[in-house]
Structure formats: C-alpha cells, structure tokens
C-alpha cells in the first residue's frame, strides 16, 4: 500500500498522531493537518520514544507514524515499549525498505531483518504485519485498547508535497492546546 493510504486510515480516527521526520510528516500535513498532529522536524529515530512518553503521560490514544529506517536507528525503543506497554499506544511502522526521505537508499528490512519478529522478540505481544489498507483497518480495530505495533508493508516513493511551513514552537503550542482543551 502507499503511505497515503495509511494516513487516510489513521486520520479518520480521533487519535493523537506523532509523525516521523521527513515525508511521513510532510504527507500527513498535506493530507490532513490538524492540531492533534505532532510533526517531528528533526531527531530521526525518536518518534516512537516521543509517542511512548506522550502515551504514558495522558489518556488519549497515541498513534505514531514511523518508518523502518527510523526504527532501525532506535531499536532499544522496542524493548522499552514492550516493558511499559501503555494501552493507549499504537506504533505503525511504514516499512518501505528504503530511507525514503534521503533518496531511497536500501535499509536492512529489505534484506534479512524482519521488524515484526524484532518487535515480538523485544517482548511486545500485540504485533501485526499488514500489506493492504483493509488489513491495516482491521489490525487497528483489533488492537484498540492495547499497546500495539503494526508493521505496514509500504511501497517506496513519496507524494509530491511541500515542506511543513509551521515552526516547531507553533506545532507544539497548538498540539498542547488541543491536549489541554480535550476534544
């Protein structure tokens, strides 16, 4: 599936969304900008960690749109997630087997590394691999109310979308206002 299909599936649920640096954040912004979106502009690898810190600190469901290259950069995060496993946590790894925001260089998930197996071996119990939009929708429903990790087989390639025009502080302030204001 395309990354845009993952985005379509998550934005129709009223969750907080943390989007990884680069095209995941840019595509989310272009498709469905909203105050409950937190766009990572730097710190590659830390979307899953930021999402975990957010999930353990407040009750709304947190969905992280991450990538295979970023998760490979912070594999220890999968163990920390397994140990704390807040039930409002959902990590979606769009696994396109390339570093898509830097020119499409291959990652190891296109070779011998299976991130679903890594996530399970790290101790996570609710782990799914999906390859179609309908499988993703079903997995999101089944995992609701549990800490979950979904590896979504994604086509390489990015939508033609601009850089996010918001400042980091503006992204933070409206996100926090959304959180403090409830729904």
């Amino acid at each position, binding site marked *: 599936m395309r990354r845009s299909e993952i985005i379509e599936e998550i934005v129709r649920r009223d969750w907080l969304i*943390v989007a990884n640096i680069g095209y995941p954040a840019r595509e989310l912004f272009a498709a469905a900008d909203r105050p409950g979106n*937190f766009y*990572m*502009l*730097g*710190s590659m*690898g*830390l*979307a*899953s*960690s*930021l*999402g*975990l*810190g*957010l*999930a*353990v*600190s*407040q009750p709304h469901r947190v969905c992280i749109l991450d990538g295979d290259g970023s998760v490979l950069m*912070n594999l*220890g*995060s999968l*163990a*920390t997630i397994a*140990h*704390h496993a807040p039930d409002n946590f959902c990590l979606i790894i769009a696994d396109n087997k390339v570093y898509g925001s830097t020119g499409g260089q291959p990652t190891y998930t296109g070779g011998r590394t299976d991130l679903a197996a890594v996530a399970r071996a790290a101790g996570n119990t609710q782990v799914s691999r999906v390859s179609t939009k309908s499988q993703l929708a079903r997995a999101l429903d089944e995992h609701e109310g549990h800490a979950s990790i979904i590896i979504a087989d994604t086509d390489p390639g990015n939508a033609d979308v601009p850089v996010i025009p918001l400042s*980091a*502080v503006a*992204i*933070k302030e409206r*996100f*926090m206002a959304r*959180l*403090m204001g409830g729904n």
Partner: protein
Amino acid sequence: MIDTRIVHCMQAAAVDMVVSLPCNMLSGILDHIDMLPIKRISVCREEEGVGIAAGAALAGKWPVLLMQNSGLGNCVNALASLTCLYRLPLFLLMSHRGGAGEQIAAQIPMGQAAPRVLEALAIPYTAVATPDDLDALASFMRQIYADRAVGAAFLSRELWHAAQ
C-alpha cells in the same frame, strides 16, 4: 542522605517524570525515586530518553533525564533538534565522571568535554560539588521549568564523599 536531598530538590521543583540510565553514583537516587509517586522509565540509550521526555513534556510533565555525563554525548542531536528546537522543558541531572578519583580512564575525555558540549548547545548548567550547593539546585531547576527551557547539573563524586 545526599541521595535523599537530591530527590527533595526534584520534588521541590515539581518533577513528575524521571527517565533514567544506570550509574553507580545514581543508584541510591533511583531507589529513592521508586518509593515515590513519580513515574520512572528506564531507557536503553540516552537519546531515547530525550524522546520520551519530550513526549511527556508535551503532556505537561516536568521531566528529568538522569544519566552519566557520558550519556550527554549520546543525545546531543536530540537535545538540539527536538528539546531545544520545540522549547520543551527538560532537566539533565548527570553524575559527573572523569574527575578526581576516577578509576575508569575512558570516563575522563567526556568528563572534561561535557561542560563545553552544554555551552555549545547554549544549555545553562550548574556544578553541584558540595551539599551546600543543593539549595541552589532546587531553585535552578524551578527556574528552568518555569522558562520551559533545558538546564543541567553535574553531580560530582565529592558530593557524596563530603557527606560521609
């Protein structure tokens, strides 16, 4: 005794989230925190802790990252391009290895570089070398959180020796 006073500084600054890595010098503090209603998350690498602290700060928490000063080197980009860029509150409480009495040669280079790394990032810091410095630590921490800024303190080995 010193461990208790450091934890009291954190409580006085209303810290409600601690992200931590292990250190011999910090083990008493970690044990003390676990007896309190303060959320603590142990992480695999310091940079990961910066991410978790940022997420907690978005939810209004006032986090501390408790680590060795060597860990500062593992989280420089995250501090710059996440915590500082988004102006999220964070306090780095570090055991300062590599000074007098250090048994591990590998701790010395980063022990010497760590203050200058903070200066390069424009992160204010204080050195806590004696028990008398602890009163100032609490007010420094409160100021950092009030400013939604990043601040740091180095806890020296002499702090524990002076208290014995």
